[in-house]
């Protein structure tokens, strides 16, 4: 049984981390809120909340009376920080405890460790060390083991490079973090790692480098490009005209700094208005690595001086040292490494991750320390069974914020609560639990909003209650929202028929909006009668469109065009459905640019007389074909039923013909005819769907046999998987009564086979020969001749990749009618 501590914490001046040793490796836990491993060691007290980390950091500079940072430096002193908003003081121990408690929240494994290793700087004396232990206890740990930071870093290194022999050697740990610098001489004395000497500067770190980039590189450049008076002063002053720009540029400088670690120059892009009102739009200032190195050189040289001091004090020569181990984010800068190596002549070691090395080392150390709770026997967090929480809030809301209130029964003294939104957008911070609590919760629009509600004791251990989550549906999830009763689909051409593409599915909650891009499958000459039809129908998307109810119809006619629309042009369609089910269709034709728009509503159905009569014709043709087929197959029962449809069909046809003579007919005849057409179509579909299904099932089986053989012979893993997936789903689509589903599976099968065939030499050669046989009809004879020559050569060379390319180009030379074996019918003109 594992009885080791395993948990290590780097309680840093600027940033803190927590890591755990588990089965030989160390995991550094991430902040559940954001993705960082680090937690800013900053605590803030605002509006009765306790904020730790990033949230507190925001207010650090501006509200230093309520937000405290860098308290680690005051550990072990009697100094305390007056917190204005609390009207009381907090000691560095209490503040550190807040950071430690917050780190507990990073542990996603559900563990609540009682023993932990916490790191301290080499410079900490007994009093400071004890104060750190106190902070650990205040945070609820029962056992706190301390470890010096340079040793932690060395352990991280030693565990990573297990083959390196460090016996009888000494080295330097050079720790340049975000805001502090520490350097220590580490030695193995009688088999134990020991810090022999150390130096440091509490006000030197990477954030100073960002400021230097802005001050010395960007600002002078900016002054050349615009008219600015006292630019730097105006940037740095809180009241200054360019204070906003200062903060903006600090961020950009930090990004540039990171980029300069791997590149020789970085660009900073921003916009600014100068004193004379000239707007410098998207100004680009380039920072080169050498410029950056020049501005930080002095600072790095200072750190080298401190390092040298240690050597002098210990009467050591650089060659006595094995290496300088680099720790801290600022050591990512190549110049820091280079300069130190240059000034001291000691090899620089960058074998560990500078940001988390100390926490990692602490966890390795923790893995060797046994849990020893002594008298402080484990006391599990008391399940406060007496805490009853009664909540009141709206489960569904149209607002951006919703009030949550709760009544708490039971003893609330010393307890806190915290509410967090599970998507990581909201955190109430720790707040004192009282008999009645009220909180405004911000809601993400059109989504389920989940909040976690947790009660904590004073040591940040969760306390069991009878309530733990808040769920609020915002916007379209509102139960009051109207639902769409049927699918809405767009009619598209497919092979020699049409297919339906679902735009909105049944039960979508209104309002809804979506975008579809379609390809034009036939050319529309401007000024001509050609047209593209955007038809929206209501009803199951698996149906044939004539069965469904047409609710929207938009024509793009050649007459309304200034330019031709060529085949293959994309049309962007936007469909918007309002709560009252008004459908707005917007069509944007690219690249000629005209826009077409129309609003439809369910009470005012659009039926185009012209389209109606074409649909009736189409249906008539289909009916005749089906009947003939049924007779041929001796399926007399179906044939007889189809026969009965012929009379109403003929009547319908006659009336539609009459109506088409007056396309501006104002009566509701067209709607009546449309309804009759749909009824006939429905019956026809019903009578013939069994046959279609049967045919498709047979077709599927045949395709499956053929494609399986191809896959077995030449398919790769991916294709085998694809085939298996289709096989696995076979029982569902074969049993289905919608032909569309089987058709989709067949299409998928052929797709797999064409993937394979395209790399199969025999197929490629065969395809090439087929194309050669059509050489007379190819559009560009000269090019065709060249391509055929090339193709022959590729076959001789067995260069099949190139043959594939040649085939593709030859194919494109075929006349339009030859390209697709089936002549496509263009009913809508989109596909």
């Amino acid at each position, binding site marked *: 049984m594992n009885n080791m501590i395993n948990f290590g914490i780097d309680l840093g001046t600027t940033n803190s981390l927590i890591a755990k040793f588990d089965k030989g490796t160390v995991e550094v836990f*991430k902040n559940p809120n*954001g*993705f960082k491993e680090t937690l800013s060691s900053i605590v*803030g007290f*605002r*509006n009765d*909340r306790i904020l730790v980390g*990033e*949230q*507190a950091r*925001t*207010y650090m*500079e*501006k*509200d230093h009376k309520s937000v405290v940072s860098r308290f680690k430096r005051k550990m072990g002193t009697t100094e305390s920080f007056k917190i204005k908003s609390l009207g009381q003081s907090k000691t560095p121990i209490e503040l550190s405890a807040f950071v430690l408690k917050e780190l507990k929240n990073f542990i996603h494994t559900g563990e609540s460790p009682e023993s932990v290793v916490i790191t301290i700087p080499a410079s900490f004396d007994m009093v400071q060390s004890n104060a750190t232990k106190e902070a650990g206890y205040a945070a609820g740990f029962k056992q706190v083991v301390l470890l010096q930071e340079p040793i932690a870093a060395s352990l991280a290194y030693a565990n990573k490079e297990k083959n390196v022999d460090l016996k009888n050697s000494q080295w330097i740990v050079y720790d340049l973090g975000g805001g502090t610098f520490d350097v220590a001489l580490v030695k193995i004395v009688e088999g134990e790692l020991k810090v022999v000497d150390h130096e440091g500067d509490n006000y030197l770190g990477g954030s100073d480098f960002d400021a230097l980039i802005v001050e010395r590189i960007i600002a002078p450049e900016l002054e050349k490009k615009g008219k600015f008076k006292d630019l730097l002063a105006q940037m740095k002053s*809180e*009241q200054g005209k360019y*204070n*906003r720009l*200062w*903060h*903006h540029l*600090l*961020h*950009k400088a930090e990004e540039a700094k990171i980029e300069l670690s791997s590149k020789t120059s970085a660009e900073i892009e921003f*916009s600014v208005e100068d004193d004379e009102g000239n707007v410098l*739009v*998207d100004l680009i200032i380039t920072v080169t690595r050498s410029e950056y190195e020049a501005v930080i050189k002095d600072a790095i040289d200072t750190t080298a001086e401190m390092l040298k001091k240690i050597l002098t004090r210990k009467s050591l020569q650089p060659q006595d040292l094995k290496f300088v181990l680099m720790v801290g984010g600022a050591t990512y800068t190549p110049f820091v490494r280079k300069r130190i190596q240059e000034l001291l002549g000691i090899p620089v070691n960058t074998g560990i991750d500078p940001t988390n090395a100390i926490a990692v080392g602490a966890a390795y150390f923790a893995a060797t320390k046994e849990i020893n709770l002594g008298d402080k026997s484990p006391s599990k967090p008391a399940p406060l069974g007496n805490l009853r929480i009664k909540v009141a809030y709206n489960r569904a809301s149209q607002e951006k914020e919703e009030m949550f209130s709760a009544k708490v029964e039971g003893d609330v003294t010393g307890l806190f609560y915290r509410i*967090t939104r*599970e*998507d*990581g*957008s*909201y*955190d*109430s*911070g720790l707040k004192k639990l009282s008999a009645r609590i009220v909180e405004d919760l*911000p809601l*993400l629009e059109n*989504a*389920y909003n*989940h909040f976690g509600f947790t009660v904590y004791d004073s040591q940040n251990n969760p306390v069991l209650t009878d309530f733990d989550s808040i769920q609020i549906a915002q916007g*379209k*999830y509102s139960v009051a929202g109207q*639902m769409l009763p049927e699918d809405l689909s767009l009619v598209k051409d497919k092979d020699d028929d049409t297919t339906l593409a*679902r735009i909105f*599915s*049944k*039960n*979508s*909650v209104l309002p*809804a909006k*979506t*975008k579809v*891009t379609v390809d034009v499958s036939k050319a529309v000459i401007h000024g001509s009668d050609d047209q593209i039809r955007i038809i929206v129908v209501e009803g199951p998307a698996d149906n044939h469109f004539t069965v469904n109810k047409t609710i929207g119809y938009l024509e793009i006619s050649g007459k309304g065009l200034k330019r031709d629309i060529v085949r293959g042009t994309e049309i*962007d369609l936007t469909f918007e459905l309002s709560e009252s089910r008004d459908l707005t269709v917007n069509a*944007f034709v*690219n690249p000629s*640019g005209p826009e077409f728009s129309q609003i439809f509503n369910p009470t005012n159905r659009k039926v185009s007389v012209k389209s109606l009569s074409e649909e009736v014709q189409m249906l008539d043709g289909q009916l005749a074909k089906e009947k003939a087929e049924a007779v041929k197959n001796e399926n007399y029962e179906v044939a007889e039923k189809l026969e009965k449809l012929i009379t109403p069909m003929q009547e319908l046809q006659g009336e539609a013909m009459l109506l088409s003579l007056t396309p501006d007919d104002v009566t509701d005849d067209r709607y009546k005819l449309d309804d009759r057409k749909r009824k006939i179509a429905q019956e026809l579909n019903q009578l013939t769907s069994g046959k279609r299904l049967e045919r498709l099932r047979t077709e599927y089986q045949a395709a499956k046999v053929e494609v399986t053989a191809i896959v077995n012979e030449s398919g790769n893993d991916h294709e085998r998987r694809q085939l298996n*997936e289709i096989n696995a789903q076979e029982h569902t689509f074969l049993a289905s009564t919608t032909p569309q589903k089987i058709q989709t599976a067949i299409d998928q099968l052929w797709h797999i086979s064409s993937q394979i065939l395209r790399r199969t030499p025999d197929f490629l050669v065969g395809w090439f020969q087929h194309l050669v046989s059509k050489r007379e009809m190819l559009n560009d004879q000269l090019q065709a001749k060249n391509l055929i020559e090339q193709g022959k050569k590729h076959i001789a060379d067995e260069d099949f990749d190139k043959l594939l390319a040649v085939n593709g180009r030859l194919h494109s030379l075929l006349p339009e009618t030859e390209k697709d074996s089936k002549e496509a019918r263009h009913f809508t003109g989109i596909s």
Partner: protein
Amino acid sequence: MEIRPPTTRIQVPKIILTLVNQLYELEQKIKRQGDTNNLLRNVNKMKDAFAEEGLPVGAGNGQLQMCLIYEDPMGQPFKETRTDLEATISGAGTDNLVVVEVIKPIIRSVLRDSSGELSDKDRAQYTQVIQKGIVIVETQKEN
């Protein structure tokens, strides 16, 4: 319906985040400099591709999609309880803060079931902030 968040945090490849951030910058630039070449249409298409088509996640039948949406928090109020923003306060005040500059937008991921068989209501959607917005906030000036 009960929607359970995934047990592990979604990892988005850095290149995808870079692309989304660049897209945002492109959109901002077009807004500043005018859209003489009708570029916004292409930007919107790319945005839609991220927001609606998304990336397949997880093994198996590939029915889960991760879509990415970015949000421009410009002009939104900022409070200490907002954790989708990394804010720097400019000026002296710390109350009534609003976002006055956006350095990076908020990027959210939405997990969707793409089977198309489900209605929006039943479709499991789980949203997560995958990139905090980096912004500068300032006390809103009284009118």
